[in-house]
């Protein structure tokens, strides 16, 4: 029973982006399209999953005083692996995400989960937590990316809903649109949480 709770925790109750407001830098910067959002979400989930597993497995062998440098080295290793693999096999996605792949290293969600969860819990629970948190992050990014791409470019996943010369609200593709969308999504989440008493 409690195992499922770890999995669903990240989806809504403690959604890293919309409730805890962590990792806002990639959230605001890469969500100009649904494709970018999904790519970023999957890359982050992978890093989170791997680092959570390793840290939970070796938590007893990492002295408390050097735990942060150890975590960062482990996280940075996985981020570099993701970076190289994406560069090799999905060069276009890698290009459009640009510097935000290496920046996953300093994403608060990953270090936050290592610090707050993986170093105190078992490997199995850490896996569930990582999947839940990663999914929550991906869903939030996907929502942002879809809304911004739809309003700003008239398409979702590059599928056009309007004709090519139709006027779209370009503001939503640009940085201010990211903040506006983010604000409305957080408000919506808070409302849902209140209504269903989550």
């Amino acid at each position, binding site marked *: 029973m409690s195992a499922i709770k770890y999995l669903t925790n990240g989806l809504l109750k403690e959604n890293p982006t919309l409730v805890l407001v962590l990792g806002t830098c990639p959230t605001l910067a890469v969500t100009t399209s649904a494709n970018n959002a999904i790519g970023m979400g999957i890359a982050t989930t992978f890093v989170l999953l791997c680092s959570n597993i390793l840290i939970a497995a070796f938590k007893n062998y990492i002295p408390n005083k050097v735990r942060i*440098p150890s975590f960062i080295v482990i996280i940075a290793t996985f981020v570099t692996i993701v970076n*190289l693999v994406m560069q090799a096999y999905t060069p276009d996605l890698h290009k459009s995400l640009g510097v935000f792949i290496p920046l996953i290293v300093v994403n608060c969600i990953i270090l936050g989960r290592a610090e707050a969860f993986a170093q105190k819990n078992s490997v199995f629970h850490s896996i569930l937590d990582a999947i839940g948190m990663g999914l929550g992050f991906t869903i939030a990014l996907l929502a942002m990316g879809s809304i911004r791409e739809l309003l700003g*470019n008239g398409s979702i996943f590059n599928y056009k809903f309007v004709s090519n010369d139709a006027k779209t609200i370009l503001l939503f593709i640009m940085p201010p649109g990211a903040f506006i969308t983010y604000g409305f999504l957080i408000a919506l989440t808070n409302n849902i949480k209140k209504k269903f008493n989550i």
Partner: protein
Amino acid sequence: MSKKIESTLLNMILSLTIIGIVASFSLGFIYEITKKPIETSAKQKVINALKEVLPEFNNDPMSEKEIINDIEIYTGKKNNEITGYAIKTFTTKGFNGLFSLMVGLLPDGTINKIQVLDQKETPGLGTKMSENSFLEQFYGKNPSSFKLFVKKDGGDVDAITASTITSRAFCEAVQKAYDALMKKKSNQKNTITDSTSYKTKDSSSIKNDNL
């Protein structure tokens, strides 16, 4: 559950060292695996762009590369006759800094085709420069008569609506490509005259080399 090891100096040094060694080994391993695909995908991108912008060719333009002012010139040949040049040019004046283009020029400098390679312009605004509606106005024009400025600056180029900065940068990059080709041509002429004068006047060619 076993107890967490204490934070003694030895433990800290040991654990950090082991983590560092394991991390660097695994990174080295992944680097070796991905090195080849990364290289081929980068090369493939250039080849695709070459095919796109050059007229017919049957040589390997990658092997005939020349660099003038950081601009790469690939020569396309068919049966040893030059059919065109593909020039990888760039500008730093884009709305978000650097972007690069592959410009295909015919031997006389007329623009054949242009393809946008790397760019990080504003999606929905500056990115329209990759669309044919913007690019087609350049095709078949010769920069010696076609003024590569936006109309606002007194040139012949229709700027993208709300993206004048991108359009200006684009023109600058194309102009640079044309200039590089002209420089390459005049260099070739110089080397021909140099080599003929070399036999007669040794000292003058040395002077030219120093220039």
